[in-house]
């Protein structure tokens, strides 16, 4: 019974997003401990309050403040998540428990989720294959938009802007509840101009590119999102359905994209807000349904989802090699539909919390356009898992689980639409062979949570996997995004990863009673990660069709690292924070034995101080120094990157206008000293584009 109550209490903590909030004085040692005892994974949870206060222009940039989490800049001020150095298909992004399926392999493909609809984020830093199947190697970025409204009617309107690319945006939300029925609706509109960098010229693939007014030509864009959710929340029975659509269009940096880096008829410097060719647009439509039923010790949950990701990349038609000038600007189009079904059952008996489930997913991808990069494919996967969480004592919980997955991939053949002379014949070269592969993966995980005195210690060990994506299996052509010839490898095995991670967390008792008391919190999260067969795109010494050949191979890889943080609360008003992270990666076999992995995260440390006050509403002002080490651990074609430091300011204030209305203002100023630096983990590093200079983000929100 006590266990059930405890579980219920923990569940309540999990659902209510405002209770466990990071870096806030409201976090008491007890709450912190409760959160830490919930799972043996290294994880961080942030609520709406943290996201609101720390608004840094985009969700990923806001989350970048968390130890171990990075936002990889991919252009246009957009970014992709990276957890402990792993990104792309090596981490799963989920929305309300369903894996988000876009074209996440792409170097310049963003999140495609309305970040202003997010109530709560949980970052799992480590393998989470048990619940999420393939891809959750580096971790999971879990986004939740399913907060059940408690008021009959409430809503908010937010206006926000960013100085660097003159971004302006509006997001509005209404939600309400009548009896057990509830609804929610969101909309977000964003518009931005060309991205600005503190340099007058850059070098790319030996081309010398002069910038007009320090702007990256044609990186302007816009985003339009909307969602509606309807639901019924009873005591035993809950069901909801959410329909969301996210559309975005953004230009590619005109001088570093496409077949040839050259001038064109387009006058890019005419306007900094227009989107010319080349550009991309993507529409992500999603229908999510959740139903759960609970009685006594048993609960069951069924999630069904349909996602359609439609993407087009357009650029000026230019003849290249033996390809004649194409008829239109449609270089690439991908139409991918994903169907997901998850069934989960929880059963609590004695001190055991058992959990089992089935998951199934089907993906269907069709391409068109004159530029080939990935073939058509269908992929189906099915998985089954079972876990047990055993509460030995109040302060000692152990868990273990296993999972079996089976996946089938059918990759279609593809031949060039134009003929290439070979000898005295003209042939349509095959770029992808028709192939069928199937994969079986067995994964497992075990962990322990232990708390004693002021300590909470967690450890987790697990195996996770990733099914090779069609690009890795079947690519055979020029990647014009980055001027190289990429060749897939049909022999690739599912990538496997073993990880051991631990969390040591210590919270002091109040140290001094003067000035309101001093509380110190310290946390260390080390990890070791080993891949027996990491899938690596190896730059070779060969040339194919005039470009350097990159070939997919598999190598043993060892990675280890840690994150550490210490927070000191002094009285009710002051808070000092210190955090740092380090990551080591080595390829231990194959042609690049001894080298690191691409985009290796350099060490970094953050020191910040924050003043919190309450004058008719909470407020804070914080100053933070971000110091990043140099990175000389590189692999071709990277360049070493110098270290740098930036000074950043953030502030927020809540104003109570009436008992129902609140106004909040958030301000974030990055790189106050306007320093010029390169980020080694940014995609733009490869093309010599420095990070943005001083940038100020402001958000004003009205809640009612």
């Amino acid at each position: 019974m006590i266990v059930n109550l405890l579980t219920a209490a923990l569940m309540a903590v999990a659902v209510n997003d405002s209770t466990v909030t990071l870096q806030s004085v409201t976090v008491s040692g007890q709450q912190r401990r409760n959160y830490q005892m919930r799972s043996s994974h290294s994880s961080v949870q942030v609520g709406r309050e943290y996201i609101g206060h720390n608004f840094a222009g985009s969700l990923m940039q806001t989350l970048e403040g968390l130890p171990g989490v990075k936002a990889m800049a991919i252009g246009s001020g957009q970014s992709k998540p990276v957890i402990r150095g792993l990104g792309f298909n090596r981490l799963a992004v989920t929305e309300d428990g369903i894996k988000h399926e876009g074209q996440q392999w792409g170097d310049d493909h963003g999140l495609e989720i309305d970040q202003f609809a997010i109530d709560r984020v949980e970052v799992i830093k480590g393998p989470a294959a048990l619940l999420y199947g393939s891809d959750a190697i580096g971790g999971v970025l879990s986004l939740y938009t399913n907060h059940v409204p408690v008021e009959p009617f409430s809503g908010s309107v937010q206006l926000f802007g960013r100085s660097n690319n003159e971004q302006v945006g509006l997001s509005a939300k209404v939600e309400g509840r009548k009896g057990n029925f509830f609804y929610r609706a969101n909309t977000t509109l964003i518009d931005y101009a060309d991205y600005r960098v503190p340099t007058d010229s850059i070098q790319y693939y030996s081309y010398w590119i002069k910038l007009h007014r320090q702007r990256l030509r044609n990186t302007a864009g816009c985003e339009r999102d909307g969602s509606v959710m309807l639901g019924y929340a009873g005591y035993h029975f809950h069901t909801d359905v959410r329909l969301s659509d996210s559309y975005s269009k953004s230009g590619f940096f005109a001088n570093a994209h496409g077949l040839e880096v050259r001038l064109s008829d387009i006058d890019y410097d005419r306007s900094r807000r227009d989107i010319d060719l080349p550009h991309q647009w993507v529409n992500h439509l999603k229908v999510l349904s959740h139903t759960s039923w609970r009685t006594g010790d048993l609960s069951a949950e069924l999630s069904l989802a349909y996602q359609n990701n439609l993407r087009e990349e357009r650029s000026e038609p230019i003849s290249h090699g033996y390809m004649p000038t194409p008829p239109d600007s449609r270089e690439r189009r991908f139409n991918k539909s994903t169907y997901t079904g998850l069934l989960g059952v929880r059963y609590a008996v004695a001190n055991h919390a058992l959990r089992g489930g089935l998951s199934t997913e089907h993906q269907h991808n069709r391409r068109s356009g004159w530029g080939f990069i990935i073939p058509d494919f269908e992929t189906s996967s099915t998985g089954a898992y079972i876990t047990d969480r055993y509460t030995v004592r109040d302060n000692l919980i152990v868990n273990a689980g296993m999972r079996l997955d089976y996946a089938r991939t059918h990759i279609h053949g593809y031949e060039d639409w134009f003929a290439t002379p070979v000898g005295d014949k003209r042939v349509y070269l095959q770029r992808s062979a028709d192939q069928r592969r199937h994969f079986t993966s067995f994964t497992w995980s075990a962990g322990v949570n232990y708390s004693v005195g002021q300590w909470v210690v967690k450890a987790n060990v697990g195996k996770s996997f990733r099914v090779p994506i069609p690009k890795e299996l079947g690519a055979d052509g020029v990647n014009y995004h980055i001027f190289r010839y990429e060749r897939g490898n049909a022999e690739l095995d599912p990538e496997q990863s073993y990880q051991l991670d631990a969390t040591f967390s210590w919270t002091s008792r109040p140290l001094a009673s003067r000035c309101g008391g001093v509380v110190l919190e310290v946390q260390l999260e080390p990890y070791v990660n080993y891949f027996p067969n990491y899938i690596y795109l190896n730059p070779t010494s060969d040339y194919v069709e005039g470009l350097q050949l990159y070939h997919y191979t598999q190598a043993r890889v060892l990675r280890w690292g840690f994150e550490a943080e210490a927070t000191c609360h002094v009285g009710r008003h002051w808070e000092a924070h210190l955090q740092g992270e380090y990551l080591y990666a080595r390829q231990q076999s194959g042609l690049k034995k001894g080298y690191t992995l691409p985009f290796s995260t350099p060490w970094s440390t953050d020191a910040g101080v924050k003043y919190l006050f309450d004058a008719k509403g909470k407020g804070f002002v914080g100053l933070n120094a971000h110091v990043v080490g140099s990175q000389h651990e590189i692999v071709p074609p990277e360049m070493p990157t110098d270290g740098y430091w930036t000074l950043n300011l953030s502030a927020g204030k809540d104003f109570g206008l009436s008992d129902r209305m609140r106004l909040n203002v958030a301000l974030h100023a990055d790189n106050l000293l306007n320093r010029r630096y390169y980020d080694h983990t940014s995609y733009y590093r490869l093309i010599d584009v420095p990070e943005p200079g001083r940038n100020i983000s402001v958000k004003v929100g009205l809640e009612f």
Partner: protein
Amino acid sequence: MKKNIFQSLIVALMCTTALGLNACGSDDEKDMAKPDINNRGVTENPINCQVYQPGDTIYVCYHFEDDTELGNYNIEIHGNFDHHSHSTESNSDEDECQGIEPERQLPDTAWVFNQSYAIPQGLRSYVAQVKIPIPKEITLPSKDNPQQLVTRNTRLGDYHFMIRLTDRAGWQQLKAVAIKVGQ
């Protein structure tokens, strides 16, 4: 006490794993430098602003060098009628060797040359010597009937001559030179 044992156990386990796995690979001998394209011991050719006529032969001569082992190289010649510029050119008098009116579209009679060459294995130093004849005419599919091939005079004007060189580790070096055909 129990707590300490537990913690030590985890730390010890992580250290052993890290060290154990780490010991398998030595990483001191890896090649971290790009190969170099230079004129050491040779008279480099072609050089910036060099003028050729259709029917001439370009006698390519460059010296390649790498601290570990050279890979392969590729030579590409493409039209520079739009006057884009390469950072690896000797830029100073670049403007003087270009025509006056830049063109936005690449004409289909522009000469395109793209050829890859192997360097014998195990070399740190190599002199690339290649003869590239400049065609007087370009063969291309007819506009009316793409199955039919027609010949046209090679477009005269500004061209870029590019060398791409790799080493065995996959580092790549580029060199671009502005040349002229005709005029």
